[in-house]
């Protein structure tokens, strides 16, 4: 497989992982106005949990779902008992989520040591498929398929279900939504838990390909930030498109201009902020 094709496939796969990470971030930020600076930590902790389960011989999908469920529980508890009390106070929310991010980073370092963990690609996802004379690794394609499936599911949930309508109502006007009988606080806990679960799921999906190591949390968090700034706050389509743009920039930048890869990564964000502050698909400015 030639270099360009490899880069393209890797870019698309990274885009899929980034979407799983940033869709939750975008939902939490867009719906609840909470700057969740522990989102990268959810990703990393979820990945570590999944990797541990995999090492014990658990099936890959079971491990991913179990890790997502565990993070949903942890995220839900943090939202219900700590973040809830800080509703509308940006600075305390920032400090609290940042505080947890540091604690999670240190606890992970303590439990899983500083060595990177890279689980083997699950057996039934190994190998490659041949399309038009070119080989594509199955696992990378599966990541993309999962990301697209999650995107469609989230879109259906938010735009087409009763629950989604309630969430949107709570966002537009929480007091009135409460008056008509919607339990807004409960919805917010649900959304936060969902975001945490998606991040953890993304972490496990990405683990065989990115590997899991200390510092992964603060490497992923800025990526989620750029994706959301790029795509527009609260927009799922924006998160999807932004994820793939960043996936491509990251892989091509690292391969072609390794010194400046990080700068290239942030250039589209700069352009968007100057030209279209609400993001590609956003309705309001952040």
């Amino acid at each position, binding site marked *: 497989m030639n270099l360009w094709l490899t880069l393209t496939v890797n870019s698309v796969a990274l885009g899929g992982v980034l979407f799983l990470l940033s869709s939750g971030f975008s939902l939490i930020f867009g719906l609840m106005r909470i700057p969740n600076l522990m989102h990268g930590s959810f990703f990393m902790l979820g990945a570590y949990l999944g990797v541990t389960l995999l090492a014990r011989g658990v099936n890959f999908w079971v491990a991913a779902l179990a890790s997502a469920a565990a993070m949903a529980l942890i995220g839900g508890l943090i939202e219900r008992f700590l973040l809830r009390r800080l509703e509308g106070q940006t600075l305390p929310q920032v400090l609290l989520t940042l505080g947890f991010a540091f604690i999670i980073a240190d606890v992970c370092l303590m439990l899983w040591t500083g060595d990177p963990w890279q689980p083997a690609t699950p057996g039934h996802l190994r190998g490659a498929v041949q399309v038009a004379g070119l080989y594509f690794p199955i696992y990378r394609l599966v990541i993309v398929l999962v990301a697209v499936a999650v995107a469609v599911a989230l879109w259906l949930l938010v735009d087409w279900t009763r629950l989604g309508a309630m969430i949107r109502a709570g966002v537009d006007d929480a007091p009135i939504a409460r008056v008509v009988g919607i339990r807004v606080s409960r919805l917010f806990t649900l959304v936060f838990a969902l975001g945490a679960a998606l991040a953890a799921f993304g972490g496990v999906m990405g683990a065989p390909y990115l590997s899991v190591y200390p510092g992964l949390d603060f490497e992923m*968090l*800025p990526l989620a930030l750029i994706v959301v*700034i790029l795509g527009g706050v609260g927009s799922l389509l924006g998160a999807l498109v932004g994820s793939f743009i960043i996936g491509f920039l990251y892989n091509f930048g690292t391969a072609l201009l*390794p010194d*400046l*890869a*990080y700068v290239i990564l*942030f250039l589209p*964000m700069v352009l968007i902020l100057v030209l279209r502050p609400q993001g590609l698909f956003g309705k309001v400015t952040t």
Partner: protein
Amino acid sequence: MSRPASRITSAAVVSALLLALLATLPVWLGRHPYYVNIASQILLWSVAALALNILVGYAGLVSLGHAGLLAVAGYAVGLLLQAGGGHLVACLAAIGVTLAASAVFAVLALRSTGIGFLMITLALGQIVWGVAYRWASLTNGDNGVTLASRPAPMGLSLAGAGPFYYATLVIFLVALLSMWVLVRSPFGASLAGTRDQPRRMTALGFNVWLIRFVAFLISGFWCGVSGLLYVYYHQFIAPPAAALTASAEILLMVISGGTATLLGPIVGAAIVVIMKNVASAYIERWNLVLGLIFILIISFMPEGLVPGSVRLARAGWAWARASLPIKSARQPQERTS
């Protein structure tokens, strides 16, 4: 009413005492350069915290990219000295570079306020970290940049702990004084106006964006100065200086001490530096402690230690007056509020 006058006098006395304590600190701690160095660290981080406080406290703009600005100044000095420049030229150029970086940060981040501002500064700070870490041909990557020597302005060598402390103290006092003037100036008042009532300020004809931009530049300038102190103190700078953790530490200093106060960031810097040194002597897990302090402060003293302690002291004083009959007879009850 003699109260305001007596308050000013007591404030002056306390400041004079504190100043005398700071000026004679190396004499008290002369035998222990370790403690003098910690005092220097507190002062240099105080400058950074005071700089960030202009934005967080007085402009209401929370930046999580200030360690990036500090590192820009530090790296600029280190690289210019390596290229063969003199200390004075390197420092002036570093401040210029930092101001330029601050202007870029400000233009981008001020497209937004609130959470958006925070996220953009965080992302920009990460760019600085990324450049420091990845652009190894320029910044020497993970190995960092080492400085051969500290400067010797007017023939006074700053190599020792004591002389460096005094240099840091002078710069710290200038920074503190300039903040004091800034806060009380018409500009400081308009800055607080843009924090509290940006729409009304616009309606009154103020250019809110420009006021915030200038505040960002002033903040960036002092952050750069603290970067110079940082790099000369350690004679070394590496990517972690620009990392999100470092930005978060500066923010913790501002918030734990109390935002929009002059004393708060200094108290916060002292707490963080002391905690960090003490904690690292006993445990490896400084970040864990840092995270716990964040959460404890938010839970129990959300307004920060200085305003929080003032509140507790006032409450205690009111309680003492109410419980002591002689005091309450001299001072009527209405004034306890």
